[in-house]
């Protein structure tokens, strides 16, 4: 009974997850299809408009008239504009803003430069694609506005070259797709569960056989659901093609009547308006309302393929759940959980928070490092932008730290190895400075009978207490070339003012001074704490044995400091290595990224160059370095012994 129940639970859970996932993906695929339909119709509208503009002569009152008529005839058009490159003209416009003073035709204003740039881009794209005889750059630009409407730009040609573009804004219509509902999923669950139950009566309580039957059922259910989904997507697509064909007919009719009675209206080929982003005809629907069956079939097959490309993953998850429950591991886990329930209960809140907001983002970031994710591809899934190891090759394989020019060597400050070297120098010099000064201050403050000790101590702790971004901005102000106090002091003694952030070395001195100032207190407090915990009679005994001051220092003080100082140094190395605020706010990497540390460089790659995938790979490399350091430190200090 127990075995059967376990396998049954595993099967149902595995199927629920696998089929639930497949159903969710199906809904997503249908939504994507609905969005594609919206795009396609909008492209047809834009292409029809572009064709009408071309046939109306490309400029003048005829064009304005055609644009107004077409925009009125098509309810999905919110605004249509025609921009011509020659004379930077807004030739026609139905936009509400372009009325009265602003009415077309007129010259583009300075604020409208993006429109001009867009048309230029289209012209370059058409030329490039024609020269290369390939589809490289998009000849029709479609962007989705946050309100759900689309912004399109389609080129207007004269004698084969781009002279302008039609800019179309479609109305904000929320795109909706019908949902599948849970019925098919529940049906398949019931069938699979029933079959397993029935067979278990024949097979008996043999665990492995039951699990194998369950695995077959999982695979079978997924295949069945794929068939069901293929039917749904096919029916959707059939409907879409009908709608698009109707839309084509309407557009053809509108263009024809808008151009009437001139001869330009003759021989319209509306099917040529149904194109992809490179203005290649899709060849699916025709203006006479018929549909190309083979092309549609192929399109449906591609959709089904894309939808089911994650089935192996869903299937594996389902099988894992089946095995986990069916083979009795879940039971074992449950027993462990119950046995140690108090421990797990106390750990759970922190663990869940860490899983959701630390470990999951971490692994997601690692996944991103294998992609070419940029700000322009955030709507794409990870497999679509997968680039393998090429980010890492680009970072680690580039050894051009310095190049030899006509006037000597120039250092390539953007190179990874320069930044790594700088980071190491930065870390080592800061930590040594902090330990040395901190230890000296602690030794002085630990002197017996020193007056004002408490006051000194409070003052010396202040840099630690002040938020470090404030410290950074203060020092940045003090290192100001013209008004900064540091340069005033230099000039006071007859020196020349230094432009601190124009040379790598002086820039390094500035950040070092800032970080040194704020990292001394930590080391001082740690050392002082350790010093005070050394029993005075140790020194007493040493003095009795005739040990001198230096002898006492090396054989009592230093060894007693070690247990406190070593972890503090480890901690401080990691902190300094990752000291983002000081570098970012004081030098900002100036000059020319020469004083960038790894972490600020990664940040700039992500949030100034928007190369998310590359920046993620950079961060993974940083993590590996720190991880190696941590492992090495662990081995050296055995810090984690006996946890």
């Amino acid at each position, binding site marked *: 009974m127990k075995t059967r129940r376990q396998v049954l639970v595993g099967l149902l859970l595995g199927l629920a997850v696998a089929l639930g996932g497949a159903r969710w993906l199906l809904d997503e695929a249908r939504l994507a299809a609905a969005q594609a339909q919206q795009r396609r119709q909008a492209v047809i509208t834009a292409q029809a408009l572009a064709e009408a503009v071309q046939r109306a002569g490309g400029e003048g009152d005829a064009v304005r008239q055609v644009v107004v008529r077409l925009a009125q005839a098509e309810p999905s058009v919110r605004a249509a504009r025609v921009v011509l490159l020659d004379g930077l003209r807004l030739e026609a416009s139905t936009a509400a803003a372009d009325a009265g003073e602003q009415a077309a035709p007129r010259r583009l204003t300075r604020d409208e430069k993006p429109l001009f740039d867009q048309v230029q881009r289209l012209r370059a794209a058409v030329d490039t694609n024609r020269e290369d005889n390939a589809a490289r750059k998009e000849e029709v630009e479609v962007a989705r506005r946050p309100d759900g409407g689309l912004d399109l730009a389609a080129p207007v040609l004269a004698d084969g070259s781009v002279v302008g573009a039609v800019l179309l804004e479609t109305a904000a219509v929320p795109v909706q797709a019908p949902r599948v509902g849970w019925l098919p999923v529940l049906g398949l669950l019931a069938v699979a569960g029933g079959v397993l139950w029935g067979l278990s009566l024949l097979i008996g309580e043999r665990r492995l056989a039951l699990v194998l039957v369950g695995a077959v059922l999982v695979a079978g259910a997924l295949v069945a659901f794929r068939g069901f989904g293929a039917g749904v997507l096919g029916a959707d697509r059939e409907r879409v093609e009908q709608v698009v064909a109707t839309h084509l007919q309407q557009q053809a009719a509108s263009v024809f009547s808008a151009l009437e009675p001139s001869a330009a209206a003759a021989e319209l080929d509306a099917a040529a308006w149904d194109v992809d982003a490179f203005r290649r005809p899709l060849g699916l629907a025709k203006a006479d309302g018929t549909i190309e069956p083979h092309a549609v079939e192929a399109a449906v097959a591609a959709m089904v393929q894309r939808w089911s490309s994650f089935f192996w993953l869903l299937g594996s998850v389902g099988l894992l759940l089946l095995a986990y429950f069916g083979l009795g591991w879940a039971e074992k886990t449950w027993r462990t959980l119950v046995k*140690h329930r*108090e*421990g797990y209960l*106390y750990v759970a*809140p*922190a*663990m869940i*928070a*860490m899983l959701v907001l*630390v*470990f999951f*983002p*971490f692994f997601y*970031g*690692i996944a*991103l490092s294998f992609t070419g994710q940029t700000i322009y591809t955030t709507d794409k899934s990870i497999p679509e932008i997968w680039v393998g190891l090429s980010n890492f090759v680009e970072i680690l394989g580039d050894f051009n730290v310095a190049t030899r020019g006509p006037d000597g060597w120039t250092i390539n400050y953007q190179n990874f190895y320069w930044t790594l070297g700088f980071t190491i120098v930065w870390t080592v010099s800061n930590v040594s400075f902090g330990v040395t000064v901190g230890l000296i201050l602690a030794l*002085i403050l630990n*002197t017996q*009978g020193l007056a*004002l000790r408490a006051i*000194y101590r409070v*003052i010396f*702790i*202040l840099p*630690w*207490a*002040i*938020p470090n*971004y*404030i*410290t950074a*901005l*203060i*020092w940045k*102000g003090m290192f100001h070339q013209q008004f*900064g106090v540091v340069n005033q002091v230099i000039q*006071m003694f007859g020196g020349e003012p230094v432009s601190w952030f124009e040379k790598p070395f002086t820039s390094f001195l500035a950040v070092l001074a800032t970080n040194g*100032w704020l990292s001394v207190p930590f080391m001082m*407090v*740690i050392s*002082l*704490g350790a010093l005070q915990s050394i029993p005075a009679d140790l020194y007493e005994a040493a003095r009795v044995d005739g040990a001198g001051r230096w002898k006492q220092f090396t054989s009592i003080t230093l060894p007693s400091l070690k247990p*406190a100082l070593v972890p503090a140094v480890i*901690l401080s190395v*990691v902190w300094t290595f990752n000291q983002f*605020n000081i570098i*970012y706010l004081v030098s900002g990497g100036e000059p020319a990224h020469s004083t960038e540390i790894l*972490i600020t460089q990664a*940040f700039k790659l*992500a*949030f100034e160059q928007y190369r998310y995938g590359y*920046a993620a790979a950079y*961060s993974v490399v*940083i*993590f590996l370095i*720190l*991880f190696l350091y*941590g492992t090495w430190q662990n081995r050296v200090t055995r810090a*984690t012994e006996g*946890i």
Partner: protein
Amino acid sequence: MSDRTRTGEMSHLPLHVFLVVYVIVTLYPLLWVFTIAFSGQQSLAIADVPADATFWDRARAIVPWPASISWANFKAVWTEQPFGRWLLNSAVVAGATTVLGVFLAATAGYAFSRFRFPGRRAGLMSFLVSQMFPGTLMLIPLYIIIVKWLGLGSTWIGLILVYATTSIPFCVWMLKGYFDTIPKELEESALMDGASVLTIFLKIILPLAKPAIAITALFSFMTGWNEFIQAATFIDKELMYTAPVGLRFFVGGFSQQWGFFAAGAIITAIPVVVLFLFLQKYLVSGLTAGAVKG
């Protein structure tokens, strides 16, 4: 006897000289901020230096005392700038981060210290390893999760969740180290008297661990109060800025409002500095206990 004391005091003189020099190094940047803040102007310069400046003109420009004392910058950040609102944002975020962070760290630290269960070592190590995750590696995914998926961009809750989790590993390790030093006999006798685990945790462990809890609270509060990068990334509404983002706003980009910055920096830094100095007696015991054990 008196002779020995005098030589002792005499030998302290070079030490005091050294200490006083270092006191000046430590205090100068702080006095500089006060000078700019009370100058009533937005300029970086303490005093105007003429073109052919003498030694004494330059000396005047480095003495941290404003030409005329004015509260104008302090008044302006409250009235003309939305600085009060930014402070409120920071206070709410940091306060909630402290409560949540201490709760999460204390429970987990207690479990790691007192219970032996499968996965304990792995859990502790995973917390330690997570400390090495570079902030920028986390920033992009966190941005997607907090802003895109959960829709918590420009909200208090988004920042509170992120800050509280960021502070967990350090606090857990520290509290675990401290709990380890509390003798088990106390709990065992309480167990004999029939106390529950929750009672022992609340009535025995937590009161005994006050110094470590104080450090944890301080650390969590500072994480929330001082954090700058994530706040700058997750928040794009000016009204929802935290104080750090607001202060950078004063002197970042083309803005050169050093007077507002200095006044704001003083207002922002005072609570943490006071808190820090107030709690610093726990610092050594807490940090070294955690650090040496860990």
